[in-house]
Every structure is written in C-alpha cells, then in structure tokens.
C-alpha cells in the first residue's frame, strides 16, 4: 500500500520553466556600493538610502539564526546578484506595452494581467525578479482613494506614507534576514486603504523569480486606516534550477482602529527535485501590527513550495479588543524542510488570537510548526486558542510541534491542542470497500484535513490551493 502512496505523492512541478527575456542583472556581491547602486537605479530619496545603509551595518554585525529545525549549506551572500530586472521601457502607459514574452509567462501561470481577463475583480501587481512590471485596476482603485502599486512608485508618489510606516512593524535589525532585506530590497507592493474605505476588490501580488543567480528581496507594506478593510492575496512561483535561490521578503501590515486586513498566501516556489537538489530558500519575515482598537489582522497561508521555508507570520495585538488569526497549511515532500508557524504577541486588553495549523509531511521531508503565544502583563482578559495537527504520509518523514506559551497575566486564557493523523492502509481500505480508489481517497482525506484553513481563503484562491495540494499529493496533473 505504501507503494500506492509513494506514487501519489511524487508529482512534477509545473511552473518550472524559464522565461527567455533580456534582463538587467547586477554583478554578484554585496557591499555598500551594491546598496548605493540599487538605490541609484531606483532614483531613491536620501532617507531611503540611509535606511538601507543602517540596515546593512546592523546586518554585518548579526549571525544567521540556527534555532530553526532546518539544515542547509552555508549561504555565500557574495555569490548572489541583488538586482535583476527585465529590460523594458522605463514607463508603461498601458498593459499593451508590457513585453509580450512576460505576458505569455504570466498567462501560462494563470495570472491575469489584462483587466478584462477571466479573473476580473482582482487587482494584480506583478513582480518579476526584482521589479514590479504591471499593476491592474490602479485607476479604478484610486477613485476611492486606495493606493495600490509597486513599492518603488509609492516611494516617489507617496514618500510621506512610506517614510511614516516603513520599518515600524519589522525594525531594520529585527532578525538576520529582515536586516538583509531592509538593506537590499528592490521592489514589492504598497497598499494604502484610507479611513472608512472597504476595498471593493481583492488585491493581489504575484511574485516570479526568473533569474538563476538572483535573490528576490521584496518589501510589502499595507496600511489600513481607521475603519478600512482589505483582502490581499499573494502567489509565488519560480523556475526549476539545480541551484538554490534566496528569497528573503519582509511584509509589514498596519491596522488602525476598527481596520481589518486579511492576507492570504499560496506559496509554490520551486521546491527542488526528488533528491533535494535546487529549490528556493524562503526566509521571510511577515508581521502585522493590530495597532488600533477592534482591529483585526488575519494571515492565511498555503505553503507547498520552497526547499526550505522559514516563516512566522505574526500579529502584535496592541489595540484593545484587537484580533489576530493565523491559518496555515504546510505541505512538504521529498527533501523539503519547513519550519513555520506564527507569533501572537498580546499587549492590549481583551485581545484574542486563533491559530490553526495543518502540516502534511511526505517523502523524506521535515515539517515543523513553531509558534509563540505571549501574553504580556498588560493583556488582561486575553484569549488564545491554538490547534496544530500533523499528518504523516509514509515513515520516512518527520512532523514536529514546538509551541511556546508564555503567560504573564493570570486573567488570560490560553489553550493549545495538537494531534497527529495519517493516511494509512485502514483508511484507504474503507474507501476502497465503497468503490473509491486510492487517489480519490487521498484527495478527499487531505482536503478534509485542511478544510478549516481552505475555508479562510478567498474563493478563487481556495480552488487554486485545493488543486495545488491534489496536484502535489496525487496523480492527476492539473
């Protein structure tokens, strides 16, 4: 029976192609000059260059974290190119001017870059290697005062906003990779929802790494003012290379009084081959500040790709009655390693957080949930509920749970539960006895296992996520 499962879990990666496009790639290596070069290429204001240089100075003093439950060879930060961009006209007047090769790439990936495309109703910012190449529905959103577009544009068009919020949730020296990102980030998405505005459509950023030697270091900043709300989606893919690429992003979310930010990710970076060769090192810092009273920040993630994932989307619950949520499905196969989870830092009174984590490990992979629930002395009446379930497929993989619970206020209530389940012979026999073959049974069990998380995703994404899992864990190629 394990042979059946083996076949089911070993499917190829379908986003592994490389786009043949002329690119402007910076020489490898990292120094102050590299940072000045990036800043100059983007024609940045002086304060941003200073921000970068300060981060770089901090980074030089830091060491790579060793506590995650992952193993990888030492990264040579001088062997990475910190800037890569497709060559094209500096300013695009409309989508029609986008390089047709790029358009074809994103069509192949199912990302709508035309506003009349099938997935109308979602505004998309597309990031190719280091730069944003297109944003749809920009003008329509501007009509209600929403700013949505590339980070580089925002630096020029809304410097006061960027300056006010950048680095306030994730300080430059927060951790090794956040410091690196702060020094060398190239582009990303910027989103600002003004007071009282409910964003009329889902916003989405699609990230694509194309160049073999480049790293991707994007920066996302989302601000929801008082009473504003937004649902933001993020997707990621990369070509199949036999070397590893570094992806070190920083995402900062800020929710003011009564604001609501929902951030969903379907991460499908290239995971390496069945022997663990190649794949993305995904070292990401994502943190939201629920600053205002009654604010809410919700992270949903479906993590299926990357050779190594190191990522803890977190919420700092500062405002009274603020709410933090984390819903996650992480699937690892072959030699993938994932150490992911969340941090819920309760500072304000009556703050509430919910954590639902589902880990599925197959092949020789290792999948760890690492979470921190911290209740500060000020967080009277705080509540947390966490549920972390693991599923193992085959006996060569590992599933691990590291929940840290720190409580400094006795009126708080914290509950954590974890369990393991499996897809084994008895389950498959029960399905078979009802006429259902192993492939359909596995798909049904997995989708059932992940249901609590999929329900949190916007509809289009839920379908994509479910397909992605079926694709990764069963036979039918999508």
């Amino acid at each position, binding site marked *: 029976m394990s042979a059946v499962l083996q076949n089911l879990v070993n499917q190829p990666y379908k986003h592994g192609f490389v786009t043949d496009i002329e690119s402007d790639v910076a020489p490898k290596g990292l120094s102050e000059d590299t940072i000045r070069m990036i800043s100059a290429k983007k024609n940045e204001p002086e304060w941003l260059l200073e921000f970068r240089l300060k981060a770089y100075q901090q980074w030089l003093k830091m060491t790579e974290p060793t506590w995650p439950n992952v193993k990888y060879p030492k990264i040579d930060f001088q062997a990475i190119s910190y800037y890569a961009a497709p060559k094209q006209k500096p300013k695009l007047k409309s989508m029609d001017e986008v390089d047709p090769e790029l358009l074809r790439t994103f069509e192949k990936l199912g990302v709508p870059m035309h506003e009349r495309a099938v997935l109308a109703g979602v505004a998309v910012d597309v990031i190719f290697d280091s730069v944003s190449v297109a944003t749809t529905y920009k003008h329509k959103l501007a009509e209600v005062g929403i700013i949505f577009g590339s980070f580089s544009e925002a630096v020029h068009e809304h410097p006061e906003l960027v300056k006010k919020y950048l680095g306030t949730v994730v300080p430059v020296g927060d951790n090794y990779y956040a410091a690196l990102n702060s020094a060398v980030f190239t582009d990303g998405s910027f989103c600002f929802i003004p007071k009282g505005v409910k964003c009329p459509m889902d916003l989405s950023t699609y990230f694509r790494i194309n160049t073999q030697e480049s790293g991707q270091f994007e920066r996302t900043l989302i601000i929801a003012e008082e009473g504003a709300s937004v649902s933001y989606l993020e997707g990621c893919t990369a070509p199949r290379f036999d070397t590893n690429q570094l992806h070190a992003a920083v995402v900062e979310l800020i929710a003011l009084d009564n604001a609501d930010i929902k951030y969903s990710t379907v991460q499908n970076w290239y995971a390496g081959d069945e022997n663990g060769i190649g794949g993305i090192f995904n070292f990401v810092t994502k943190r939201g500040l629920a600053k205002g009273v009654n604010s809410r920040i919700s992270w949903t993630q479906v993590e299926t790709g990357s050779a190594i994932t190191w990522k803890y989307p977190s919420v700092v619950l500062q405002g009274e009655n603020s709410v933090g949520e984390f819903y996650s499905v992480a699937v690892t196969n072959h030699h993938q390693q994932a150490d992911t989870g969340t941090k819920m830092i309760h500072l304000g009174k009556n703050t509430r957080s919910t954590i639902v984590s589902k880990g599925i490990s197959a092949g020789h992979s290792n999948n760890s949930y690492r979470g921190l629930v911290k209740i500060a002395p000020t967080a009277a009446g705080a509540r947390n509920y966490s549920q972390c379930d693991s599923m193992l497929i085959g006996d060569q993989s590992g599933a691990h749970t590291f929940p840290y619970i720190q409580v400094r206020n006795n009126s708080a209530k914290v509950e954590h539960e974890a369990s393991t389940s499996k897809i084994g012979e008895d389950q498959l*026999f029960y399905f*078979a006895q009802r*006429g259902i073959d192993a492939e359909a049974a596995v798909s049904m069990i997995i989708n059932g296992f*992940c249901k609590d998380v999929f329900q949190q995703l916007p509809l289009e994404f839920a379908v994509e996520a479910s397909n992605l899992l079926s694709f990764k864990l069963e036979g039918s190629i999508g």
Partner: protein
Amino acid sequence: MIYPGSKTILEVRGLCASVSGTEILKGLDLTVKSGEVHAIMGPNGSGKSTFSKVLAGHSAYQVTAGSVLLEGKNLLDLPPEERARAGVFLAFQYPIEIPGVANSQFLRLTYNTVQTQRGKEELDPLEFDDFVREKMKLLEMSPDFLDRSVNEGFSGGEKKRNEILQMALLEPRLAILDETDSGLDIDALRIVSQGVNKLANKDNAMVLVTHYQRLLNYIVPDFVHVMDDGRIVKTGGKELALELEARGYDWVGAKHRGAAPKVVAKVAA
C-alpha cells in the same frame, strides 16, 4: 428467502488464507444464492471476521489456496475497489473515522462511483441530497448526520446505521455484515435490522457474521453455518442458531475435533 432456481451469487471453494504467516482460514466452502440470508456463527477466533475481510480484499490477508466466485467472476483477482463496484459490500465491525470529510460528500462520491460503474447517471449534490434523505428515513437517521465528518464522534449505533445507509445507497449484490449487532442497544438493533430486512430482495444476498443469536431474532436467516478453526463445520436452518444459543459452541467444535465428551456429561450421567 429461498427461491427455487435462483442464481448463485457467491461460490467459495477450499478457501485458505493467512495473516502475517499464520493460517486462519483452512479450507472454507460456502455457496450463497440470490435471495438468501446466511448467518455465519462461531466462537471468537474461529475466522469469521477474517473471512469477511478476505472477501472484501483487505491487503493484510493472503489467500493461499481456493477460489471465490461472485456471479461466476473470479473475485480474488480484483482490488478492493473493483470488488465493491462489482457488488460486494462489507459493513465493518469497526467503521473507520475520517476527520474533516463530510459524510454527505463521502456518500455522494461513493454512490456516484458505483453508479458510473453500472452505466447509470451520477446525481448532482441537490439531487443526491433528496435521494439520501429518503434513504435515511429508513434508518431513522437525523439529517445532521450528513454534515458531520464520516463516523467521527459517532456512537456505536450511529456508526452501524451509517454502514447500513451506505448499503442502501450502493445496492450491493452481496452484503456481508460483520458483527453488525455488536455494541447496539435494543432500539438501535431493531432499527438496523428493519433497514436490512427492507433492503433484502430476491436479487441480492446477505451474509451475517455474528457471535450471538440475538441479531437473528430480527433478521431471520435461511441458513446458519458454524465456523470453527477456519472452516464451516456445521450447517443448518434458523433453529441451529437457537441451539447454539442454548448449548454454546463447544459441542459443535468438540464433535468436529472428535474430542472426548465433556466432564459435564459425566456428572449428568
């Protein structure tokens, strides 16, 4: 019910099977014709449950000799799902819990899979919902069963009713009920039995595997077989079950093994 001239549904000849090297079935013979209800009784460890799992094709059991034909077709060549689609239904003694998978979703998939196999139309979720609710009435099941995860947190009686509901949906040619009465209170036993009786007809056949006679008060068998040490050692009508209830299993097995009469007999003399 025995119908004259009815077709043979199941034909088992000299069946031997083992589990991790230990032989459990040691030459079992059984013929079941359409319309008939057979009861297989026997003490614990006699091989009853093994027999039902072997018929359904559980991979933990290796068939080492003998043949099993379903309506003339070799069943042993088929993987479990093909057997199910061919009309073999096993009501599990311990139905598996599948957390997260809604019962309605599971029932519809299994129903449509078997329907497709039989060249019939699939039902969409709305049509299926009407259809399954009708069948649930038969078993006095509340509709909220549909929204719960398959067997998860079900009581023993609920699990068994869910098994019979699946049987009602799949309309098997051969239904094997493995210890369906175990763990049932009297009300649940009555409901489950009524359900089974309503599903029995002249085109299908039932094999009830049970340790106790109790179930046979509700589902009246045409034949009662006694299993011992991997073989059927005695066959009779429904009255045999009553005799077993009164006298236990020892006398049948003892006769079969040719052992000395029991001490009790001496005392009586």
